[in-house]
């Protein structure tokens, strides 16, 4: 039986934590979610001698206050799951800020090992460390590593083992950091009251708890709930505000930095004046007042190109492959037979799996690009450049990328919200991203615009539709921000990390992980829904009396004395009529018919309703479904016969309303599935479905009614 150890990796973002994690665990990784939150939980294992180390990669954080989901997760893991050792990964070239987290870990009293990562860069930048002194200041062994060159890992593992073997002991309620006279006075009063409460003393270290309460840590308050303590702390807070002129939480943070500065003054020597680095030179160009935005837009264009243009041939191959597979399966049955099993295999399963896999090239290429942008440090610059605009809608600079990608496809776009740290910002972005008109909606516009509008208006109509989407996205974001997802605006305090060359291994791992997650988590849902939709459009089949009528009609045509061409034409006609009747008879058709009262105010009839149900599988299916309900056989967006039928049956106003409804309404099921997976909640996925569909209905009804009243687009 092997000895088992749980080792948690903590550290600032950009400190090279992921590189260390990848190096320690190799491909033996497992990615999951922490329950109830969108934060990812990464685990891996690493054998060392006769010990099996389970390495948990905590989210990168600057601090352990309950500021973001990431920090809550990291802290709760350390407090609740008691890892045997916490390894704090520190960017040695940016010591002071990185040590802030260290001080907090030290206050928590966990068995700690410090890793001075990127120590080679620190050397070049002229830092010399007295590791022995630093180690005594921060009460933990220090190991120097160079993550991307794989240096120092043996020492790290042996230090972890040593700490696990003899964890450092600490006196109960010991003062780790002196917060200065004023704060200490208040802290000792609070600590006294805590020590009098047996229930609290059993759960927390009284000194740590006193500091956290004075820091006004909401998470900790939630666990304490004591009225006398609340009153006492409120009094202390007011007292400190009076004498120091600042809030206790900022004073405490300041004192921690004081401790760090003191330690660094004694143990760190900097031989070279901080000069302008390579990174500054790059920034001078890419965040330049004039060049910044054009460069950004150019890069975004390349990402778009990479995702959708290079992805295209791969998508074509996948389509061909599934087409071939379908053909092969069809060959198992004699021609003309209509077995349900065949239909299930062909339309339900192969169609469904194809619908899942088809997005994979897009997702892989997009995440390849995003991984490069992120690992190189440019992502932070995008947020820096775009924040002004996004701030106006109540979002974060980083929300820009998902919304832009949304014009290509909502699925990778929603997955790209991953780069936004704040849950609220992330959810708002996820909710409104489908309003960015995606590529699959284009065939609908391509069918409808030429059917109803003069040629000169083609471009203009398309533009109007896209702009409506953008405006609605902005309005909805504002609305969500002030209703469901309101709350104090989260401060935009973001590090602009130095530019780094991304490692191939890191980028590929990241990309692969996304692709795998998509297939595994979203894929199963998409497949399920597509089989359901297949069933809805297939069952119940036509009653025998009806289908035998079509059989008879066919026979009549076959027998009749007609030219072959005419015969074929009439047969096709009967086929089309039969599929129209079958669709109308099916569950989807019945729902479409039953929904007519809801559809009427928008100017829609049951045909459009049925087609819309089909469009839930994928937006472009709307066109094919319209083809079936109008009995024109296989239709695509270039179908002139279908356009003629549309023109005959509907006014241009209705045409516009169809586009409007398709733009806004329920995004396709894959989007819903990905939202479920990314928000880690069915609630938000269904809210997206319901919310957007309701919005679509309201907007379309208003447009139709006002349009009719003003007599616009009637002829």
């Amino acid at each position, binding site marked *: 039986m092997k000895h088992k150890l749980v080792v948690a990796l903590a550290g600032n973002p950009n400190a090279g934590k992921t590189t260390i994690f990848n190096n320690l665990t190799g491909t033996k990784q497992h990615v999951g979610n922490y329950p109830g939150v969108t934060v990812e939980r990464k685990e891996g294992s690493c054998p060392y001698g006769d010990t099996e180390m389970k390495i948990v990669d905590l989210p990168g954080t600057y601090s352990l206050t309950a500021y973001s989901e990431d920090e809550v997760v990291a802290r709760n893991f350390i407090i609740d799951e008691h890892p045997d050792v916490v390894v704090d990964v520190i960017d040695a070239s940016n010591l002071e800020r990185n040590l802030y987290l260290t001080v907090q870990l030290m206050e928590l009293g966990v068995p700690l090992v410090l890793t001075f990562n990127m120590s080679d860069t620190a050397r070049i930048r*002229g830092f010399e460390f007295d590791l022995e002194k630093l180690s005594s200041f921060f009460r933990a062994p220090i190991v120097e590593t160079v993550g991307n060159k794989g240096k120092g890992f043996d020492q790290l593992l042996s230090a972890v083992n040593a700490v696990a073997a003899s964890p450092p002991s600490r006196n109960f309620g010991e003062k780790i950091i002196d917060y200065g006279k004023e704060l200490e006075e208040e802290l000792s009063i609070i600590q006294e009251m805590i020590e009098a409460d047996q229930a609290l003393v059993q759960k927390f270290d009284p000194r740590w708890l006193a500091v956290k309460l004075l820091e006004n840590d909401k998470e900790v308050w939630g666990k304490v709930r004591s009225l006398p303590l609340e009153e006492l702390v409120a009094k202390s807070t007011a007292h400190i505000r009076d004498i120091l002129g600042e809030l206790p939480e900022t004073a405490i943070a300041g004192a921690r930095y004081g401790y760090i500065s003191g330690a660094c003054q004694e143990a760190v020597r900097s031989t070279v004046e901080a000069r302008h680095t390579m990174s500054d030179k790059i920034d001078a160009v890419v965040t330049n007042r004039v060049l910044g935005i054009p460069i950004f837009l150019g890069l975004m264009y390349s990402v778009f190109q990479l995702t959708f243009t290079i992805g295209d041939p791969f998508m074509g191959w996948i389509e061909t492959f599934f087409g071939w597979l379908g053909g092969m399966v069809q060959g198992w049955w004699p021609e003309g037979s209509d077995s349900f099993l065949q239909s299930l295999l062909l339309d339900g399963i192969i169609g469904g799996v194809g619908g899942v896999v088809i997005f994979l090239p897009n997702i892989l290429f997009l995440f390849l690009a995003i991984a490069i942008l992120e690992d190189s440090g440019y992502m932070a610059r995008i947020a*820096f450049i775009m924040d002004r605009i996004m701030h106006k809608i109540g979002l974060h600079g980083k929300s820009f990328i998902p919304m832009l990608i949304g014009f290509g496809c909502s699925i990778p776009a929603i997955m790209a919200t991953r780069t936004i740290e704040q849950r609220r910002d992330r959810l708002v972005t996820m909710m409104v991203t489908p309003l960015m008109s995606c590529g699959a909606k284009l065939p609908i516009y391509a069918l409808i615009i030429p059917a109803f509008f003069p040629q000169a208006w083609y471009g203009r109509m398309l533009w109007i539709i896209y702009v409506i989407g953008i405006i609605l996205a902005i309005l909805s974001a504002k609305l969500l921000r002030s209703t469901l997802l309101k709350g104090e605006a989260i401060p935009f305090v973001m590090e602009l990390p130095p530019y780094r060359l991304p490692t191939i291994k890191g980028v590929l791992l990241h990309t692969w992980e996304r692709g795998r997650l998509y297939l595994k988590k979203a894929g199963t849902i998409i497949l399920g829904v597509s089989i359901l939709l297949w069933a809805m459009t297939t069952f119940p089949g036509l009653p025998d009396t009806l289908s035998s009528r079509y059989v008879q009609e066919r026979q009549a045509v076959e027998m009749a004395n007609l030219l072959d061409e005419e015969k074929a034409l009439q047969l096709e006609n009967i086929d089309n009529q039969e599929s129209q009747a079958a669709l109308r008879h099916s569950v989807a058709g019945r729902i479409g018919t039953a929904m007519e009262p809801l559809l009427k105010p928008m100017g829609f009839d049951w045909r459009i309703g049925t087609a819309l149900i089909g469009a839930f599988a994928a937006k472009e299916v709307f066109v094919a479904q319209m083809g079936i309900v109008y009995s024109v056989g296989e239709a695509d967006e270039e179908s002139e016969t279908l356009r003629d039928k549309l023109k005959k049956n509907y006014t241009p106003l209705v045409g516009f309303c169809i586009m409007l409804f398709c733009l806004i309404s329920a995004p396709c099921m894959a989007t819903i599935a990905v939202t479920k997976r990314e928000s880690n909640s069915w609630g938000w996925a269904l809210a997206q479905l319901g919310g957007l569909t309701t919005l679509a209905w309201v907007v379309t009804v208003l447009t139709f009614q006002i349009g009719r009243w003003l007599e616009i687009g009637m002829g």
Partner: protein
Amino acid sequence: MTVCQMLSSSMEDYLEAIYHIISEKGAARAKDISKRLKVGASSVTGALKALKKRGMVNYAPYDVITLTSRGEAAALDVIRCHEVLRDFMIKVLAVDEVDADAAACRMEHSITKKILERFIQFAEFVEVCPRGGAKWIAGFGYRCDHDSSLDNCESCISQCLKGVQMRKKQQEEKIMTPVSLKSLKKGQRAKVVKVRTTGSAAASKRIVEMGVTPGSLVEVERIAPLGDPIDVRIRGYHLSLRKDEIENIDVELI
């Protein structure tokens, strides 16, 4: 360990000479060095070999000599030593320039970093302390040249007091009008004075946690193209901050 202690004094002289020659001519040759230090060519070669061994210079026979980054740092240390001592002798001890230079040349090798810092601090102190100042130094020079006399003492002290009051008032005015970090322009440096309690508590705490604490130095590196978030350098790294979230951070321009 200071650089001064790692090298012998003649080695430091060589480094210093090479640095000066490079900054004058772009590159140094053994001939220039022997001319400047008035030593023989063979001792120059020996010294260069020794320096190369310590990774201070890039040197190959008959090739030009350049300093490595380590060598440059060491040379700069020595030069700084020299300048501080020279300034001290001229400004505080009222010694003339040539003598000061010559003495600094000899003293620069034997002074530790700590004492050097004290020299700087003392010179600053003399300039700032109400009982010191440039006039006081001038008085010292006068007293050295003339016989000791107490004639002007009273009027000198009353003038001195007036000066103190003026300076105090000026300083108060400066403290009275700290500016918001928000109002800093590109390239300006400032010291954080206070994080007022008026702003959002969450934002303030976050900003302080990222290292913007009272007493820390900030420099505005750039402003975003659309004018809003600003990029400040703090504790050696870059931080992006929204203007309306740093309104309550008071700074003093440096």
